C-alpha cells in the first residue's frame, strides 16, 4: 500500500484533516436535519457522551475494587523471592494474554481502525495512511496506558495494600510502569495488522506466554525461581513483611527497561506501523465486526464466528484415516479437522492442561478463584476440540448428508473432544487422587455445556421482550447472559463444586452428572428439531 501511495505526487494529495473536517461538518448537518425531521434531539451524541462518562465514574471504582479483591485472592507464595518470581510470571502471562487479544483484534479490524472510504482514498494515494491513522494511534496509546495503570494500581492495592497505602509513590511507580508495558500488546496488535510484521507480533506473544508459563511451572515444581526470574517486583509490590532482594541499580535498570520498551512500542504504533498498515484488510475486518455486532444484537450468536474472518487450514496433504473412516466416519473427520489446525490444537491442549491443573489445585484446599479460572480455561480450550460439533451445528440442516439420527451424529462428534478432555484430565490428575474427582466433574460439565451451546445458534425471540425494571429495560442484559450462558454455567458449577468441597462426595457428583446429562439431552433434541 505504501508503494501505491508513493506513486502519487505530493502536490496532488488532498489534505486529510481538511477533508475530515468537511466530512464531519456534513455529518453534523445531516444529524441536525434528521433530528428536525423526526422531532428528535440533535444533541443525542452529547447525552451519549455524558452517559458514558457517568457510567465510567459510577462503575469504574467498583471495577477497580473488584480487581483489587481478585488480586488479593491470588495464591502467592510466602517467600520473598518466590513471591517476586510469581509476580513477574503473572505479569508476563498477563502481557502475553493481552497480546493474544491484540492478535485477535487485528483479525477483527483493530486496534487501528479505518472506514471503507478512508481505505479507498488511502489506497489510491490521496491520503497518506499515517495522516489518517496518527491521531487514532495517539488515542490508542493514551487508552492503553490508562487501562494498564488502572489494572496495575488495582493489582498493587490487592497484593500489597500496606505498601500501596503507606507510599503513594509505590502506587504511582506501578501505574507508570504498567502504562509503559501496556503499550506492548497495543504494538503487537497494530503490528499484526501489517503483513510485514505479523510474524514478529506472533513471536513476541509466544515468547511472553512461554516465559510466563515456564516461570509458573518452575515455581509449581519448586525447580528454583532464581533460575528463571529475570527481574524482581518485590521492591515495588513488597511482600508480607519481606524485604527487597534487589539492589538499587537493578531496580533502576528494570525501570529503564520498562521505559525503553514502552517508548519503542509507542514509536512503533505512532510513527512506523501506520505507514505499513494494510488499510484494506483493516476496513474489511471492521466491516465484518460491524455486521457480526448487528447479528449479535439480533440474536445470532453464530455471527461472532465471522468476526475473525475465514480460518486458515493447514495439513492439506493429510487425508481422512482410511480404517477409522470405515468404522467411525465422524471421528475420522474430527481428527482430520484438528490436524488441519495444529497451532490451535497445541494451544488448546496447553490451555486445557493448565485449566485442569488449576481445577485440581483449587480442589486441594486452594481458593475458589483458582477452580473457577481453571474451569474457564478448560471451557475455552474445549471450543477447539469440539470444532466438528460446532461445524455440524452451523450447517443449514445438521447432518443432512449422513445416515442415522441427530443423537447418533452428536455422539459421533463428541468422541474426539471427550477423548482429548480425558487425556488432559488424566495428565492433570496423574500423581495423586486428590482433586481428580473435581477435575473429572468439571470436564464432564464442560463437554455437556459445549454440546448444549452448540445446539442453539439463535437467541429465543422471547428474550427480546422488554423487561421493565427501575433501571430501565433489561432485555439486552438477558440477551447478553444468553450469549454467555455456557461460560456462566461452567463457572457456576465450578464454584459450587469448590463450595461443596471434597466431603460432599457422591451427592455433588450425581447432581453434576445429572445436570450434564440434561444439557446433552437438550442439545440432541435441538439438533433433531433443526
Amino acid at each position, binding site marked *: 500500500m505504501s508503494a501505491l501511495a508513493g506513486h502519487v505526487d505530493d502536490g496532488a494529495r488532498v489534505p486529510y484533516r481538511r477533508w475530515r473536517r468537511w466530512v464531519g461538518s456534513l455529518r453534523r448537518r445531516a444529524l441536525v436535519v434528521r433530528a428536525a425531521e423526526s422531532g428528535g434531539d440533535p444533541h443525542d451524541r452529547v447525552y451519549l457522551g455524558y452517559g458514558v462518562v457517568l457510567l465510567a465514574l459510577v462503575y469504574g471504582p467498583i471495577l477497580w475494587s473488584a480487581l483489587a479483591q481478585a488480586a488479593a485472592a491470588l495464591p502467592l507464595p510466602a517467600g520473598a523471592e518466590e513471591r517476586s518470581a510469581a509476580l513477574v510470571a503473572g505479569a508476563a502471562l498477563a502481557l502475553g494474554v493481552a497480546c493474544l487479544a491484540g492478535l485477535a483484534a487485528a483479525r477483527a479490524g483493530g486496534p487501528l481502525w479505518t472506514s471503507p472510504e478512508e481505505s479507498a482514498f488511502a489506497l489510491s494515494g490521496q491520503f497518506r495512511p499515517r495522516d489518517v491513522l496518527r491521531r487514532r494511534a495517539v488515542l490508542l496509546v493514551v487508552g492503553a496506558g490508562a487501562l494498564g495503570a488502572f489494572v496495575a494500581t488495582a493489582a498493587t492495592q490487592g497484593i500489597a495494600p500496606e505498601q500501596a497505602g503507606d507510599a503513594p509513590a509505590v502506587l504511582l511507580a506501578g501505574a507508570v510502569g504498567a502504562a509503559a508495558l501496556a503499550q506492548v500488546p497495543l504494538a503487537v496488535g497494530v503490528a499484526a495488522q501489517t503483513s510485514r510484521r505479523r510474524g514478529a507480533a506472533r513471536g513476541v506473544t509466544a515468547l511472553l506466554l512461554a516465559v510466563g508459563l515456564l516461570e509458573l511451572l518452575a515455581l509449581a515444581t519448586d525447580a528454583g525461581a532464581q533460575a528463571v526470574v529475570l527481574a524482581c517486583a518485590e521492591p515495588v509490590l513488597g511482600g508480607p513483611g519481606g524485604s527487597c532482594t534487589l539492589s538499587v541499580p537493578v531496580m533502576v535498570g528494570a525501570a529503564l527497561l520498562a521505559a525503553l520498551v514502552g517508548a519503542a512500542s509507542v514509536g512503533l504504533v505512532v510513527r512506523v506501523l501506520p505507514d505499513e498498515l494494510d488499510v484494506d484488510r483493516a476496513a474489511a475486518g471492521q466491516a465484518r465486526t460491524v455486521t457480526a455486532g448487528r447479528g449479535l444484537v439480533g440474536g445470532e450468536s453464530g455471527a461472532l464466528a465471522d468476526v475473525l474472518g*475465514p*480460518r486458515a*487450514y493447514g495439513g*492439506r496433504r493429510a*487425508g*481422512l484415516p482410511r480404517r477409522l*473412516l*470405515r468404522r467411525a*466416519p*465422524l471421528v*475420522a*473427520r474430527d481428527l*482430520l*479437522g484438528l490436524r*488441519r*489446525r495444529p497451532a490451535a490444537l497445541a494451544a488448546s491442549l496447553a490451555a486445557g492442561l493448565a485449566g485442569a491443573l488449576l481445577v485440581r489445585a483449587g480442589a486441594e484446599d486452594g481458593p475458589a478463584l483458582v477452580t473457577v479460572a481453571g474451569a474457564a480455561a478448560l471451557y475455552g480450550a474445549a471450543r477447539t476440540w469440539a*470444532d*466438528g460439533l460446532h*461445524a*455440524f451445528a452451523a*450447517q*443449514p*440442516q*445438521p*447432518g*443432512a*448428508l*449422513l*445416515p*442415522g*439420527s441427530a443423537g447418533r451424529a452428536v455422539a459421533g462428534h463428541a468422541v474426539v473432544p471427550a477423548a482429548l478432555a480425558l487425556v488432559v484430565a488424566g495428565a492433570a490428575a496423574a500423581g495423586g487422587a486428590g482433586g481428580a474427582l473435581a477435575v473429572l466433574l468439571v470436564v464432564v460439565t464442560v463437554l455437556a455445556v459445549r454440546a448444549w451451546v452448540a445446539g442453539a445458534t439463535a437467541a429465543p425471540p422471547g428474550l427480546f421482550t422488554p423487561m421493565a425494571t427501575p433501571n430501565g429495560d433489561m432485555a439486552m442484559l438477558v440477551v447478553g447472559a444468553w450469549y454467555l450462558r455456557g461460560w456462566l454455567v461452567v463457572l457456576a458449577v465450578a464454584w459450587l463444586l469448590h463450595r461443596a468441597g471434597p466431603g460432599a462426595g457422591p451427592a455433588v457428583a450425581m447432581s453434576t452428572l445429572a445436570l450434564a446429562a440434561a444439557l446433552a439431552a437438550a442439545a440432541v433434541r435441538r439438533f*433433531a428439531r433443526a
Partner: protein
Amino acid sequence: MPPPGPLVEVRAATRTHGTVQVLGPTTLTLRPGEAAAVVGPNGAGKSTLLRLVAGKDEPTSGDVRVLGLPAGQARLRRREDVAVLLGGLSAYPDLTVAEHLRLVASAWAGRHPGPGVDAALAAAELERVRDQLPGELSSGEGQMFALVTTLYRPARLVLLDEPEQRLDARWRAVARRLVAGALDAGRALLVATHDPDLRADLALRGQEVELAAPGPR
C-alpha cells in the same frame, strides 16, 4: 402388482404468513422414480412448497404427507430417505470437496450404491477443485458441489431448490445430466426451478406444478 404408494402427497396445501398468502392451494402427488418441476414467478411459493414437503414448515391449511407420514414427522423419522438442498449445503468447512464425498460414501457404507468419488467428481466436472475447501470455491463451483453432494447421498426422495442458481450454461447442462442420472436411479425428485431446459427435462419424466403469481399485497 399394485403401483407403489406415493412418496409425496400434497392436498390443497396453503401457507400464510400474517395476512400474506405465500402459497396458494396446491395439490401434488409424486411416486418413486417420478419428477416434478415446481415453477412460477418469484414470490409464487416454490421454496415454501419445498419447505412444507421437507417438513421444515407447517401448512396453514391442507395436508402434506411424505412417505406416508405427516411431513413434520417424516423429517424426524425418515430423514435417511429424504435428501434436501434448501438454503445451502450442510458441509464442513475443513474438509475438501473430495473428502466430503468420501465421508458420505463411508458413512452410508453398504447402502451407498456408487459411483465412486472420482467418477462422481468427473460427472460433475469438479475434478479441478477436488482438493479445495468449500470456502475456497467460486459461487458456481460451490453450487455444483452442493448439488453433486446432495445427489451423492442415498435417498428415495430428493428436494432441490433452484439447483441452477449461479451456474453458467455449460454447468447448467451438467446439472441437468446429474438430475437425470438421479431419476434413472429410481429416485423421486421435486425441483423448484427457473431454468426452462431443466423444467422441460423434468416435465418429460413426470409433471409440472405451476404456481400462480403472487397477488397484490
